């Protein structure tokens, strides 16, 4: 009796479908337009996946191990055939072929070219840029310092405003707190909501808010805040999920309410890691704020993109030095603080 192992089947099916598509491309050499026929191409991929699943199922009937079986074993028994070298196994060849194909496709897709790197015109452009960057124009230093201060405070406010939201959300996103018929749906809803929020990059949020509230540091701050809430809530809630049950039982047994139990039994266990995560988040936010400035989030990033647009490399050099010093200082400071909190 072969039990259906869905994860294994899906894994093998996707690997096969990928190889199937690569093979078809090599044989038929489709043109640009053919790549754009999304519906047809998805169908071809699904057909490959279906075939792959069938083959995978066939292998499991023959009791031959595929890569999917190795990753997601269907039985918990350790088998004794582990000593066979990989090139004598189906899964070994499956992984080797799939990785080689992925590597080749990646090289083709990124138009990897040694000639571009060695091209003399392009190389001279890079030399000009480096000459400028390594010979900074210190006249823009005062403006750069003022802008990076703006960036640091933007990052600070984003982190500070995110804390209370993330704090409350973290308990509502922790599996060990959210038990029972009402709490569980809330848990799933918030988890999904935060996962979606987090998967939208801060850069995208910055674009949204620069349309909403106008270009400038406020838009950047809002973008960082949204991203920080989602990230901190996730990190915080993982901390809450690892607290020991003992103190919780201890407080519950006194007849405490749910809120008192969280405050007296859970919070003391998580408060130090919380502070540590928050300091690190501020550090990350300063770096992200620089990038966000590039799309109109204000601060040093906006200044950088203006000079870069005009190819004023000596001014760009000055800005890069300022950013590097601040990021290095923040990084070191946050590392020391986090070490002290352990």
């Amino acid at each position, binding site marked *: 009796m072969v039990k259906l192992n869905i994860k294994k089947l899906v894994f093998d099916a996707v690997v096969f479908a990928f190889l199937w598509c690569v093979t078809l491309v090599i044989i038929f050499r489709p043109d640009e337009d053919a790549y754009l026929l999304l519906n047809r191409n998805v169908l071809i991929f699904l057909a490959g996946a279906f075939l792959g699943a069938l083959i995978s199922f066939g292998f499991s009937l023959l009791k031959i191990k595929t890569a999917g079986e190795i990753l997601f074993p269907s039985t918990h028994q350790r088998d004794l055939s582990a000593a066979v070298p990989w090139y004598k196994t189906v899964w070994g060849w499956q992984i080797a072929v799939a990785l080689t194909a992925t590597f080749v496709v990646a090289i083709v897709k990124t138009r990897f070219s040694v000639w571009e790197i060695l091209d003399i015109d392009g190389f001279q452009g890079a030399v000009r840029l480096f000459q400028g960057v390594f010979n900074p124009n210190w006249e823009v230093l005062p403006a750069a310092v003022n802008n990076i201060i703006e960036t640091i405070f933007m990052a600070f406010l984003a982190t500070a405003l995110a804390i209370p939201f993330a704090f409350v959300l973290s308990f509502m996103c922790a599996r060990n707190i959210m038990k029972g018929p009402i709490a569980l749906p809330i848990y799933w809803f918030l988890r999904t909501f935060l996962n979606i929020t987090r998967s939208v990059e801060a850069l995208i949020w910055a674009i949204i808010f620069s349309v909403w509230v106008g270009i400038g540091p406020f838009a950047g701050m809002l973008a960082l805040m949204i991203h920080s809430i989602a990230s901190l809530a996730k990190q915080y809630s993982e901390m809450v999920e690892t607290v020991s049950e*003992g103190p919780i039982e*201890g407080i519950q047994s006194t*007849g*405490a309410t749910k809120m*008192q139990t969280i405050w*007296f039994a859970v919070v*003391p266990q998580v408060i130090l890691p919380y502070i540590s995560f928050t300091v690190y988040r501020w550090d990350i936010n300063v770096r992200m704020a620089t990038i966000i400035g590039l799309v109109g989030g204000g601060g040093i990033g906006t200044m950088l993109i203006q000079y870069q647009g005009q190819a004023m490399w000596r001014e760009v050099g000055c800005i890069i030095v300022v950013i590097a010093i601040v990021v290095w200082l923040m990084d070191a400071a946050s590392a020391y603080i986090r070490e002290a909190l352990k």
Partner: protein
Amino acid sequence: MENILQITQLEKTYPNGVRALKGLNFNVKKGEFLVVIGLSGSGKSTLLRCINRLHDPTAGSILFEDKDIAHVQGEEVRDVRKNIGMIFQHFNLIPRHTVLSNVLMGTLGRMGSLRSIFGLFSESDKEKAMKYLQLVGIADKAAIRADQLSGGQQQRVAIARALMQEPRLLLADEPVASLDPATCHTVMDYLKKVNEELGITIVANLHFLSLVRQYATRVIALKGGELVFEGDPKDISEEWFQKIYGQGAKEVHIN
């Protein structure tokens, strides 16, 4: 003597299908020091956690002062817990808080959520906390963080926290199992003092028969979730011992 606890046909099946308690029947009289013995996994801890509703019983009834509490919900569960104190094998104190603050947590059940979160414990509560710390002989440590105390001291703080609830019943789940033999007796002596001087009924899980004989006024034994012995601690003969702990088991003495 009047019964403080009447347990009838108590069943507990965990979600994973384990039947921890299979229809227990027994009574606890007011003022007793009842000890529950049995192997690990015999259902002792489950039994205590069903009584103060840290676990929900699957079936049966638990009459606490003549009110069935086996299946009450919400606020009523908290009412049950307010009147039943509990101490644990691993003490379950809050390590980062002071001893005094840990003892004050015993009043949480009677306090408003908001007031307690701002730490607004009343002066009379603080005096009471000091009184109970004195009772367990540890008042001089009131300002020290709980995680800086030894195991035996932590368990005494836990007793003070439970007393702070002014409970009518005190549950003790393996109260001395993680303590060394010498400290063991100190903690047991304080439990006895609580039982005799304050008249609080005690139900305790214990491992060592020598402790049972010394402290219990009555003993019950569980095996595989069923009651296999009930009676005077002096009546546990070699034969009974083998029955409870399995063939070939040897008694370990603790002095």
